[in-house]
């Protein structure tokens, strides 16, 4: 038997056993290392007689390949085995809690303001703001509510001076005055913001939020007012149909004036908007009084239009099933967590107002 067959037999035999990684590596270098047995056989190639050389070379290569692939496989098996063995020791309890992540919350009033802005943006209203502290003129007089007018009694006003010249605005309507005084018609704005009345009980808070709407142009009539509010209410409550009722009312700064009720019913203790035969008052509106237009230097014979005021907190309560108005402002961590919104939920028309 030639040397190389012997080598082959010997190593095939050795490799039969269950070997560890090291032993296999050692066997590998015994064969193929610089002075490995197979390597040495190759070195002998020159001394093999010419007529035998071809066969020798071919045999040697076959043996080399066979051993080599056997060793490779052996190593691979060992490695897979090692990994499998390791994996058995690497089990974690995946039911343990993950690392913590804290996402904050957006207050429902802020969310609803964004919803409202998104809806009115679609029909061309832009957002205007005014200061929380107002003068008596912008809050009342310019809005056709002169001193000694009984309508002033309906607004329990916080005053900042004894002469009652400066106050916390009782509604967002002074933004109408500011907007019209500082620009030229047409006007098409909404003005959300904080408003204040010195009234505090279960259903009244000394501070609350309103959104004012104003659209002044040529030929704007009560039909447009109705259409605008109908659109808004439907969009806001995300319903296809809404039962709405316009009722005559009185505000000094609009004439004719209206209050708007929406239909609702109570099902399983929850309020359902848009159906049923009960009415819920949600806003006041009307055609801007010519006296107001004159006060803000707009010619009522050329321009006319409507204004409305909506309680934002109340809208939020209705849409999101919040019962207590006072809770909005009490900063109870549990309440904020429960009713607050994910900051990534930015209301938009194409993605829908709410999820």
């Amino acid at each position, binding site marked *: 038997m030639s040397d190389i067959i012997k080598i082959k037999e010997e190593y095939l035999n050795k490799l039969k056993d269950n070997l560890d990684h090291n032993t296999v590596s050692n066997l590998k270098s015994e064969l193929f290392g610089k002075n490995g047995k197979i390597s040495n056989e190759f070195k002998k190639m020159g001394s093999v007689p010419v007529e035998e050389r071809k066969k020798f070379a071919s045999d040697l290569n076959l043996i080399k390949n066979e051993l080599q692939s056997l060793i490779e496989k052996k190593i691979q098996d060992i490695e897979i085995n090692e990994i499998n063995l390791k994996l058995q020791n690497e089990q974690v309890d995946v039911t343990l809690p993950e690392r913590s992540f804290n996402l904050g919350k957006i207050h429902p009033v802020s969310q609803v303001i964004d919803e409202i*802005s998104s809806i009115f943006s679609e*029909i*061309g209203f832009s957002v205007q703001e005014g200061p*929380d502290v107002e*003068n008596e003129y912008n809050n009342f007089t310019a809005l056709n509510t002169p001193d000694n007018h009984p309508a002033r009694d309906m607004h329990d006003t916080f005053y900042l001076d004894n002469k009652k010249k400066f106050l916390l605005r009782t509604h967002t309507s002074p933004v109408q005055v500011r907007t019209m005084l500082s620009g030229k018609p047409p006007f098409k704005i909404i003005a959300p913001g904080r408003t204040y009345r010195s009234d505090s009980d279960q259903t009244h808070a000394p501070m609350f939020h309103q959104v004012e709407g104003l659209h002044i142009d040529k030929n704007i009539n009560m039909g447009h007012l109705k259409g605008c509010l109908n659109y808004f209410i439907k969009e806001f409550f995300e319903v296809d149909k809404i039962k709405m009722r316009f009722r005559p009312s*009185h505000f000094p700064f609009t004439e*004719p004036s*209206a209050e708007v009720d929406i239909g609702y019913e109570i099902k399983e203790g929850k309020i359902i908007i848009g159906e049923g035969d009960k009415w819920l008052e949600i806003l006041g509106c009307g055609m801007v009084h010519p006296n107001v237009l004159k006060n803000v230097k707009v010619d009522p014979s050329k321009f006319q239009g409507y204004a409305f005021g909506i309680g934002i907190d109340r809208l939020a309560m209705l849409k999101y099933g919040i019962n207590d108005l006072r809770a909005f402002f009490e900063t109870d961590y*549990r309440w*904020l967590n429960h009713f607050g919104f994910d900051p990534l939920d930015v209301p938009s028309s194409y993605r829908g107002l709410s999820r």
Partner: protein
Amino acid sequence: MKFTIDWLKQHLDTKYDDEKIIDKLTSIGLEVESFENQSSQQDEFIIAKILNAERHPNADRLSVCDVDIGTKEVVKVVCGAPNAKKDLLTIYAPPGAIIPKNQMKLSVSKIRGVTSYGMLCSESELKLSDESEGITELSSKKYENQIGKKYFKNNSSKVIDLSITPNRADCLGVRGVARDLAAAGAGKLKKHYQKKIKFKGPQKIKVKITKEKNQGCSAFGSCLIKGIKNTESPQWLKDKILELGQKPISAIVDITNYIMFDLNRPLHAYDADKINQGIIVRNSKKSESFEALDNKKYTLQDNMCVISDKSGVLGLGGIIGGTRSGTELDTKNILLESAYFNTKSIRKTSKLLNIDTDAKFRFERGIDPDSIEEGLLKAAKLIQEICGGEISKLDVQKNETSKKLLIRFPLALFQSITGFKVSVKEIIKILTDLGFVVKKKSNDLNLIVPSWRPDILQPIDIVEEIVRIKGYDQIKIELPEKVREKPTLSKQQKLFHFLQRSAASKGYYEAITWSFTDSKINQLFKEDKNEVEIVNPISSDLNVLRNSIFSNLVIYLKKNLDRGFKDISLFEIGPIFSGHKPGDQKTVLAGLRSGKISRLNWIENERLVDIFDIKRDVIQILVETGFDQNKFHIVDKSPSFYHPGKSGTIYLNKTDSNPVAFFGEIHPNILKKIDIKTEALVCFEIYLDNIKETNKKLKDQKTQYQYSDYQKSERDFAFVIDKKFKVQDLVNIISEIDKNLIKSIKVFDVYEGENIPDDKKSIALNVTIQSSEKTLTDEDLEKINQLIISTVESKSDAKIRS
């Protein structure tokens, strides 16, 4: 404004049923608040069952009963009736009820040491029979299922309660409501029928309205009724007064009230014998006083409209009469007043004196000046019918005659405002039914406004009259166009909304708190701002406008800590105030965090929140907003309510004069003062007004996109430097060396202690060096290394740590 359907039907001929009337009222702008049976004293008596009766510990004849009155809780009642036994069904009267027999009002009382809540009633006490032996016994068959229900059926007619808007003075009388309904097609307004009166002689008491500035009375009508017998009102009149929710007093008073609610015509009756000579209507003098019918003494100021006689003030015209000339049951002769008082004068006086009466409520809204005679006649006739007596001729003194208002109404205005058409014929009919005198003149209507409508002043008011009578449901919906010509939000508004959501995305819960706060807390955060007091706060702990959002946020933090929360992150974005004028306000985003990070966490080590947590939040918010962190300049001065050593101020650029943000720990003294117990508390503020608007969009602010594929190298340096030296300055020195090569600098260690002198610290930095032109050679790198060391050592007292 309350009345019954029957009362309404005295003025309105209608085929409408109750429900239709109610709907119509609402649709024409007379909002129905409620339509219910009037509550009566009898509602209080409740069917009850004695669950247990024990002998009173201190009295043999009394028993202490546990009574089921249909509520969750059983009440204890002490009872003297021998038949008060377990399981008896009877009638219970709660504290507050008035016993019909003796008109006694029950209250919670102790009877021989045992508290009794209400009473069990006998039949005689309820005026059911004369049976006074023992309490009422109800058959258990009939009443067993009715425990807790009212014993007496409420048969009273239903009362409409209208909420009348301040412009509709005319509808503060039943006749005015009827007129509106008639105009809206609900029926026909009945003709006013005045019974004939035989007048006896002139009105002998002289009435004078003084002519002076600010005279609040323009007309004073009166008549004298002699030889009357004042009495209790007949039942029909008592019922009317009760329907209004008021108490019958005497025929004279009830009649004047009745006329007021029927015709919206306030009247006043004086005991004519108590008037000292004539009546003078004049302005009051300061410190005059009188006792009013509400039994309060009022001290007057100058220029209040008073009705007086020679002895002094009798009453405040149109507001309240005085006791000195009040009518009593034994009054023989009365002077009946029907006057017109100026709305503003009434309002001013009643506000100053804080008096609210039904008459004042009507006069300040404006009553019909032409109703003086009508009111006198109707009341006088009624008085005569009930109390007898002789009626004098009417006397009407006038300082000025009321003028009719004329309006020229362009017919086209209606459609222009409402968007729909109504025929001229129908417009004329509506207005005529409302009492206007109408004359058509080409395309206009010439209108005389009825005297009872002081709210109608110009053509737009006519539009409202027509549209409300026609019904708002006639207005056609014009769908809005989806067109946007202007951007919805301004830059500043976008910034507001961005910051709001950015803060929330860092784990903060958004709060909305009052714009006002407790001055005691506000003091701690106000700095040099003016305190802005509210003249009429709702409570003493909400008495100033907040100078800082923290004034409120710390209060609510404390409340949440008290609720047992420890790790709290809150923010609010909103106004703070620095003065009492419009515009003296700034918009601020303020946030605070308390407690620990990773509290009770199995995998991460828990630690207190610290200034570098809050700094990360505020810097990250600013970076997200679009500012370059590399340009931020941070200094260690901050407002005094921050911890002096652990707080900082951020400028967007080194050259800016206004800081955009503050951050740090709250001063420990303040925590002590507010008594906040938390392990750690850090906070920040961003001043939106100090963030300058740029016209450039974010995309335009970005530099060109460039990157280098050449190899980059990182080198670590450690410098030993003065303890007070700011890392920011060290980093700046290095980055200035070669902006092209030095790509980033990271501070990875700050060390003080062993091996470092006491007044020094060691700062370790990792600097990334990369060229965009070539691969740097070892020599290049060595050069820049040396340059970094030499520059730092020369520009500061730092030494490279070897």
